[in-house]
């Protein structure tokens, strides 16, 4: 999976392309760890080209959401494909992570 991170003013944009799975979850964790160090995180994921996530990806989004919320920050996942959204829905993650 490709992860492209850009910062604009105080906001962080993350563009995800491809599959987030067991083969690259560790790399994804390394990619997003710096985002947790922001004092007041404001993160927007563009999931337009995210093809897939397994529970390996879900746990990282949960970890990030917990950190962001504990700092009073904001995180949103945008433009998710229907099948990827279904994985968030059936696990209840849609209730605790903002998806628009």
């Amino acid at each position: 999976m490709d992860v492209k991170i850009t910062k604009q003013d105080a906001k962080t944009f993350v563009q995800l392309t491809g599959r987030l799975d067991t083969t690259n979850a560790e790399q994804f964790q390394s990619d997003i760890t710096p985002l947790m160090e922001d004092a007041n995180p404001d993160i927007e994921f563009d999931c337009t080209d995210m093809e897939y996530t397994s529970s390996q990806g879900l746990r990282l989004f949960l970890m990030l959401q917990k950190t962001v919320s504990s700092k009073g920050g904001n995180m949103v996942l945008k433009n998710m494909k229907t099948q990827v959204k279904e994985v968030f829905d059936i696990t209840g993650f849609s209730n605790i992570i903002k998806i628009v």
Partner: protein
Amino acid sequence: MVKRFDPVAGRNADIIESVMASEDVVNLADDLQFKVRLCVEEVEENILCYSGSTWVEVETCVEKDQLNIEFRDGGIAFDPLAKADPDINASLDERNIGGLGIFICKQMMDVVEYERKGDSNVLKMKIAIKLQ
């Protein structure tokens, strides 16, 4: 089709891709392929993390309008279905990281069954299919 992975350490991607490339799966509709990929990944992750087996066998077959996927490994007896489901209505603070993989399989597949057969763990999954 039966594929055996021995040794199995570090073969996560091989297992998934061999199932996805099998003739039983490659012609399925995209939404079914998505579910198969996801559940195969979740099960093999579980086996590789917990069973301690040095080998895994994966068998796929189509029966009428159903795809059967069977995993066998020689690890310690471990019934992943015995674990309680995660509370999907829990708040963000209460949600635990982990415990989701087998729950996803139970949601996505029509049938998920575990059996201890001799010295092997056997996990079967079944899903209704519509060939393209």
